[in-house]
């Protein structure tokens, strides 16, 4: 079996901006002069209120949105357009409904010209790791929302990206499925350790998964927090003092002052 293990690469964003013109004609700065260094293999969560620019920034990292000014580089090389080196798990379903699960899982490898035997072995390896070994001949319509996300995650990992980008991938899933998929993702990340940028609304999810949390507001990065909680993390880890401190700060950023005040009053 050809392993999907690849050398992770760091990301560097240097004064990156992106503006949109609204239908009314006025300009909106979705991403405003953002500069970040993300070392290789780091698991970063991007968090912020709706419309803060985090998904736009992720799309720019993926090469799907142009950069108006500044530069994004990966491993020292400026990025220009999408690349299989930067795999993306979308918020919406991106699994092709007209292809069986296995054909979806091999798609990236086939696009890169990997031979049939290798790509099948690789795809089966990752489908096994996400618990879908028995479903490889199924059509996506036969799978639940959580299973489709597993296919999307397996497909991206099978393509051996140096950087993995995830745009609120588990946002539409129920609580239990979300926890299961978080674990699946962390297990896969532990195997090949690509650099991860994970966009989420969920503070707990960010705390359970990341090494670092970047908070965005109004297109800018307004906080940069290192999370040094020991791994593996479990739901109880969220009750540790460091997690609670991060959570209060993050909730304040998200505009939930009342929740923080209530907790402080109880203490």
């Amino acid at each position, binding site marked *: 079996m050809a392993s999907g293990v690849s050398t992770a690469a760091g990301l560097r964003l240097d004064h990156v901006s992106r503006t949109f013109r609204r239908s009314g004609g006025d300009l909106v700065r979705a991403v405003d002069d953002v500069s970040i260094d993300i070392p290789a293999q780091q698991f970063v969560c991007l968090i912020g209120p709706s419309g803060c620019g985090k998904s736009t920034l992720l799309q720019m990292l993926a*090469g799907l949105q142009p950069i108006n000014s500044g530069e994004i580089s990966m491993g020292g090389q400026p990025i220009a357009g999408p690349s299989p080196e930067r795999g993306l798990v979308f918020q*919406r379903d*991106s699994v*092709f*409904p*007209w*292809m069986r699960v296995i054909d979806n899982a091999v*798609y990236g490898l086939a*696009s890169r010209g990997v031979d049939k035997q290798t790509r099948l072995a690789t795809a089966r390896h990752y489908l096994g790791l996400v618990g879908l070994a028995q479903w490889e001949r199924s059509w*996506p319509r036969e799978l639940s929302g959580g299973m489709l996300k597993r296919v999307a995650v397996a497909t991206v990992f099978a393509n051996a990206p140096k950087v993995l980008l995830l745009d609120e991938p588990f946002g539409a899933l129920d609580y239990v499925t979300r926890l299961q998929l978080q674990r699946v993702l962390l297990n896969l990340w532990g195997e090949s350790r690509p650099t991860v940028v994970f966009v989420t609304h969920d503070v707990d999810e960010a705390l359970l998964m990341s090494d670092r949390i970047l908070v965005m507001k109004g297109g800018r990065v307004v906080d940069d927090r290192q999370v040094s909680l020991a791994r593996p993390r479990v739901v109880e880890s969220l009750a540790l003092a460091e997690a609670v401190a991060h959570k209060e700060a993050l909730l304040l950023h998200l505009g939930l002052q009342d929740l923080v005040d209530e907790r402080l009053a109880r203490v």
Partner: protein
Amino acid sequence: MSRRLLLRLPFDPLGLTGLIGLAVLWWAITFFQWVPTVFLPTPEVVVRAIGDNLTASRYLENFHLSKGGLLTALIYTVQNVVLALVLACALGIGVGLTSARVGIVRSLLDPVVMTLGTIPILVTAPFFLIWFGTDRLAQVVLLVLYDTTLIYLFAQRAAGNLDPTYEAAARTMGAGRRKILFDVYLKGTLPEVFGGIRIALAGAWGLEAISELLGAPDGMGKVISALASATDVPTIMATVLVLATVAVAFDAAVAGVFGYITRWQPEVAHG
């Protein structure tokens, strides 16, 4: 028969009841002579006319029609319909999908296709007769024009309706433009495009027959035109019945093939 199998059938079994009802009504009208049989012959007479003229018919030869009876005429008609459909699929799907993705192609072609779509297609038939004579080419070009217009519009609309996430996903996985066009746009739009092809096919039979009526070396329309001059209502009805049966069978077969190719689609819940 299981509900699942029923949903996968290319036709509604209840539709058969409608056809049988129509046949019974026809029989009743002629049996009770509500309409004189000179205008509406009995089913038995029409079926006999089919049997007498299907494979070889001295009677039809008297009208300077081909020696092989209705079957030879039918083959000519079917060949034209299928040939035109294949050409229109290649043209309509290719250009329709491209126009959905490339703005300049859409801007250039949309007004042309819209204009073609609003002109009653039969109005153009005399031009094809003048340009191509009564050759097969005149009928095929007319059908290609009609089929392509429909398939182009369906393909363009289907590509526009396709979730752009699929293209973005393919791009981030390393797929090139041609692979995206084939794996995402072509495969993802097939259900809607197939709907357009079936509509084009349904109209093509009638259009082919009428264009043969206007002037053709062979075909079912040519047979009807010749028999109309002799006011032979039973054989005209036999010809129409054979053509209608083949058209229905063809549509059922095409629907079956299309249903198999797009079996990945979620099953539609029927109330």
